[in-house]
Every structure is written in structure tokens, then in C-alpha cells.
């Protein structure tokens, strides 16, 4: 288990499981490839035959709309056959184990698995047990990683800011439970962003988070100063039920992004959100729909980035 399980012996991408430990050359290769596909998605005929004859299985053990749909569109634009399995309501509820499910689907000649699971490490486990010709893409595992989301965020940042080396990026919200934040942090630091900040109350920050290479802030005014890129995280309602936070009203007052707070960042700062948004909890509608928001372009870029990941994996 010591070797980075997402790289093959040649150091090429075998699976995409996390952005942690991913060489900068591979990160850049994915972003550059995505750039070339971004044109495809704007053409009249949107299909290219890179994955013709291949079967991509979307294995979603957790509900998802956006991620599953963009993966499906990406695979179809590459001419793959796409099979969507909503496992939350099928075999697993009949007691079949995760590996049994995966083995059964492998027997149906799958070429690629796109996996979302509520447990951290689920995609790693699948990747370490599938046949060597099958590729696994992690579409979100527990609190651990969501690498394609982070990659599409990097793509978005590059589109709007060009260079990573002079940026200050702030990630605001529930870092503790966020696989998106973890993947973003690793991608940003690898790509050379000199200052990544996390801003949140202490109850939703994981311990030793500074060891990931970020600066910790608890106050929006201080944390947003001189910021080029703001990434707002979704605050899940269940956090209010436990003892993490007292109320969504108080959260919005101190950590929700309003025009007033946005003004504390650089005037040309962009605002991102991985979705789905809770308007009035972590972000005000005026900001979400405002001219600094790049939230909808993120979704669009998600298709090109996922096409890039799939085509690179299929080529290795």
C-alpha cells in the first residue's frame, strides 16, 4: 500500500483518486487537455470518438445530480457507452458488499468506473481490487477527495486568472466535512499558489489543517483581505442539528458571503462555489448571481475537465 495507487509503474495516471501527491506535470496535462476539449463542447457536433466501444459505469452510492450528469455528458461526448447505476437503492441495500458489486460489474466488461461513496477511501479500495485494465475515477469519497471538482476549479481559476503563482485563494466554510476543500487545497498548493487560506469557525475546521499548507483564519474581514479567488463551500443542514453550529442565521451573518464582505477582497476577485448552493446560508443571491461570480462557468468547464480525465486514463 505504499506506492501511490493512482499512478502506474511508468508514473502515468492509472486511476484518478485524489489530487494529493499528483505530479504537477499530470495536473497541467489534464488542464491543457481540458482546454482542447472546451472547444468541442461549443461545437455543433459535440462528439469525438476517443472512447468509442468503451463502457463507463457511473457507480453512485450517494445521490448526485450535477457530478453524475456531467460525467455522463463527458463520457457520451467521447462516444463511450454509459451505464448509470444508482446503487443507493439497489444491490447494496440487499446486503451485497461493495467489492461484490464492483466484481459483478467488472464481469460485464466495464472499462471505467466513476465512483461516489459516502465512505472516505472507497475509491482507493475499489482501485486496489479491480483488474489492471480498469480505470477508477473518484467522484467523491466521504470527506476525503473529489479530484475532478478540484480540477475543474483549477481550470476555472486558470481561465480567469491565467497564472497561479501570484494568487491568494480563500476557501470559506465547512472544511472539516468537505472532500472538495481537501482536493482543492492539494491542487492549489501543487500548482504553486503561494497563499491558500481557510476561513471558518473552529468547529468545522479539521485539526492540523495547517499541515496541508494553508493559513487559518476565523474572521472574514482579515481572511478576505487581498484575496483573488474566493471559494465558498456548501454548508449542509445536518451541521445545524449537531453541535457544530448554532444556526444558519448566525453562520450567514459572520461567514456568509455578501456584497459587503466581497468588497473586502480584491476588486477583481472571482467567486466560486462547487454547488449545490444554499442561498442565504453561505452565499447571498446578489453575490451568487453577481458579476464576480463564475459559478455557472464552473459547471460548464466540468464537462471538458471530465472528458480530459477520461481520455487520459483511456490512453494510459
Amino acid at each position, binding site marked *: 500500500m505504499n506506492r501511490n495507487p493512482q499512478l502506474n509503474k511508468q508514473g502515468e495516471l492509472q486511476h484518478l483518486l485524489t489530487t494529493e501527491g499528483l505530479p504537477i506535470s499530470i495536473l497541467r496535462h489534464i488542464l491543457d487537455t481540458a482546454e482542447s476539449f472546451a472547444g468541442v463542447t461549443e461545437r455543433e457536433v459535440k462528439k469525438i470518438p476517443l472512447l468509442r466501444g468503451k463502457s463507463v459505469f457511473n457507480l453512485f452510492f450517494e445521490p448526485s445530480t450535477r457530478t453524475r450528469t456531467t460525467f455522463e455528458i463527458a463520457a457520451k461526448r467521447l462516444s463511450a457507452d454509459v451505464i448509470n447505476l444508482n446503487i443507493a437503492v439497489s444491490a447494496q441495500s440487499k446486503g451485497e458488499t461493495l467489492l461484490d458489486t464492483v466484481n459483478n460489474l467488472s464481469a460485464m466488461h466495464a472499462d471505467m468506473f466513476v465512483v461516489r461513496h459516502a465512505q472516505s477511501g472507497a475509491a482507493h479500495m475499489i482501485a486496489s481490487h479491480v483488474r489492471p485494465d480498469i480505470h477508477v475515477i473518484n467522484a467523491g469519497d466521504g470527506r476525503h477527495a473529489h479530484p475532478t471538482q478540484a480540477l475543474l476549479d483549477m481550470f476555472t481559476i486558470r481561465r480567469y486568472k491565467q497564472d497561479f503563482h501570484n494568487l491568494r485563494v480563500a476557501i470559506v466554510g465547512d472544511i472539516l466535512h468537505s472532500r472538495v476543500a481537501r482536493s482543492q487545497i492539494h491542487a492549489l498548493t501543487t500548482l504553486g499558489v503561494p497563499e491558500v487560506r481557510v476561513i471558518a469557525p473552529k468547529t468545522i475546521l*479539521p485539526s492540523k489543517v495547517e499541515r496541508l499548507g494553508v493559513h487559518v483564519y476565523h474572521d472574514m474581514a482579515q481572511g478576505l483581505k487581498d484575496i483573488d479567488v474566493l471559494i465558498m463551500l456548501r454548508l449542509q443542514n445536518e451541521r445545524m442539528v449537531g453541535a457544530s453550529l448554532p444556526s444558519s442565521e448566525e453562520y450567514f451573518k459572520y461567514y456568509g458571503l455578501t456584497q459587503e464582505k466581497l468588497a473586502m477582497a480584491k476588486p477583481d476577485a472571482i467567486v466560486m462555489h462547487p454547488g449545490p448552493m444554499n442561498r442565504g446560508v453561505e452565499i447571498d443571491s446578489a453575490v451568487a448571481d453577481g458579476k464576480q461570480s463564475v459559478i455557472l462557468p464552473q459547471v460548464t468547464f466540468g464537462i471538458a475537465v471530465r472528458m480530459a480525465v477520461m481520455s487520459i486514463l483511456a490512453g494510459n
Partner: protein
Amino acid sequence: MRIHIKNGRLIDPRNGIDAISDLYLAGGKVVSVGARPADFQDYRVIDATGMIVCPGLVDLSARLREPGLEYKATLESELQAAAAGGVTSLACPPDTDPPLDEPGLVEMLKHRTKSLDQVRVYPVGALTQQLKGERLTEMAELRDAGCVAFSHADAPLANLHVLMQAMQYASTFGFSVWLRPQDVSLANKGVAHDGEMATRLGLPPIPVCAETVALSNIILLTRETGVKVHLCRISSAEGVAMVRAAKQQGLPITCDVAINHVHLSEMDLGFFDSNCHLVPPLRSLPDRDALCTGLADGTIDAICSDHAPVDEDAKLLPFGQSEAGATGLELLLSLTYKWAMHMNTPLIDALNTVTYAPAKILGIDAGHLTPDAPADICIFDPEAYWYVTASAIKSQGKNTPFLGRELPGQVKYTLTDGKVVYEHL
């Protein structure tokens, strides 16, 4: 049966012996160390040239999974594993199904282990009925049935009033109470040490304060009740410091650590290695170093295997869903020996933590080679290395963080009651 073990390096921590010396056994007892007794006729001679002869190991925590959990392991498989690991006495925690909370269950277990006649098994009784943390068990009856102490295993005991009553009741009879310090609400369904690795891997964390807050309660209640307390499987640097302070105050406290925690840290989780899913969690490197220091200065009295055989399917799950535990009986000696080599700890001191020290905690006459003591003996080859593989392990549990690793120290013979119960061919 008369057995003459000759030319071995005899290490007997209790008696301070570390020398090439012969050992003579008869009638299930040690007869003589060094000099051949008059008219001793060898029935069998074991040539231990180049080997170490020490008391059979005493393990303070080995789950045998009977009754009720035979799909994980059986007495047959686990007692063979103990013998293969040089373990001749072991204490089994009460977390079977049903738990060891009634004399009949304990008697049945004693009867079954006696009929297998391999190693000595000392059941630890449940502190509360069904380990629910509500009503006390019939401790005196359980003691009469064969329980040597009372514990709550890893089951939560949230109600401090119940804990205090249990400690008071146990102290009435002079029984000792074994507790693994962990506050259930602070552990909050976590699966990994609250540190850098859990943050990176996104695993629900168990903070150190889950141990220290519980420890603080236990220490205060020990002072209040005067009961003898044994702390099981301490895991943190702060915990070690608290135990050290409590011992300095003269409280009747002893303490053990699991051998995996002496070697490993959170870093060994790597990419979600479920073999490293243990209870308590593997903590930080400074914590591990503090555990080693605690062993060296006597704050921690003993090392246990924390043997917990788990069936393989239960490990083939994402880390957080996988069952905690690792097989350990057959690794205890090798890992203790390896630790001694790394730390430059004299072997006699290292072996004390798995022989005489745990025997004292159990209150049994074992773990030493004084004439007339039970002839429980482990003979191992310190120069021989072995690979930890599923087929090399006799336990039904094949999972350990050390799977695939090479370990020093191969057990060659194990004797219980002067009878060879394991022989490495």
C-alpha cells in the same frame, strides 16, 4: 514428563537471570535451573543451543471469540495460535456474544479451554450485565467461576455513577477493574487519531482528549474507591503522563500498551490500510515515542498483543466501515523482540513486559522460572526471521499491519505445564 532443556540462553526477568544455563522440568514444574538434580533421568532432551529460553508469555488481552463469534475465530484456532506464539497464559476480555456476565458462561469457557489443554486461559468478567453499563454483574460468583478481573472491554460505560458503584463493589472483594480509557461521546464514532492523517484522509477523528478525559475520571474514581485498576491499551503521550503522575501519588494503578502501538503511528494508515484500523487508534509519532518512554521508565507495566481476530470480509471494506482489530498472539514475541533491538532495551527488561509483569497484574503464579514454578516456557531462535503471511499464521484472523513484513525471533518450542504444546518443524 521429564524434560531437559540444554545449552539455551536462559532469561528469567523475575530472578534477574540472563545466562547460558540448562533447565530441568518434571511433573509440570521447574525442578532446577543450572545444576542437574540428583537422579534426574532425561525423558526428552531439547537442544536449545543458540536459542533463548524464557518464561512462556503472558498476554493481557487476547480475544478468543467464543462464545458466539465463532465465524471470526474458535478456541481451537486461537489457542493453537497462542501456543505458536510462545504464549502460555492469556486473559480474554468479556466482549463475546453473549458477554461473559454469568458464571455458567465462564465455567463453559474454562471447561472448553481445559479440554483443549494448550495454554492457560483467564477470563475477565463483564463489569456490567451484557456490558450495557447499567447493572452490575455478580462479580463474586463470577470470580468463583474463574474470572480473574472485571472489565468493560471496549463497550461504552457512559454513566459515571455506574462506574463508581462497580469500582466500589469490586474493591469490597479486592477484585481489580480493567478499563480502557475512552470517553464515548468525545470519540464520537471516530475511526482514526485526530491528527494530520485523519485530516488528509478525511476520516472521522478520535481526539486524544477522548482518552485523557476518561482517564481523568478513572484516576479520580480510583482515589475515591481505592479499587485496584488496570488501564488497558493506553495510546497517547498525555495519557502516559497522567498515569505516571497517578502512580507517583501511590494510586493502585497498573497499565498496559498494545504491541502495535509501540511500533506504529497514524502515518502507517498510508492509503486507507484497514489493517491499521485499531482500537484505540494509532496515534501520532510523538505519542508512540511517549509510549516507548513509558515502557522504559515503568509507567507502562506490560505489553499485550491486543489479539482481535477479524474475518477477512470485515476488513475488505472502506476504512471507516471495516472492523477494527488485528491478529496478534503470534506476533507478540517477535514484535517485542524487534522493539527491544531498536530501542537498545536489554532483552531481560523487554521480556519482563510480556512475562512476569503481566503475570503480576493477573495475580497468577506464572511468568518466571523459579524452581517449583509451573513449567510454562517459550524457546525461540533470536537469529531466525519469518515472514508474516496468511499461511504462516495459525489464528483464524489473518489481518495485521505487519502482513508481508519480515520479523525477527522465531518460536521453536512452547511448553505449558511441562508439556510441549508447540514445536516448530
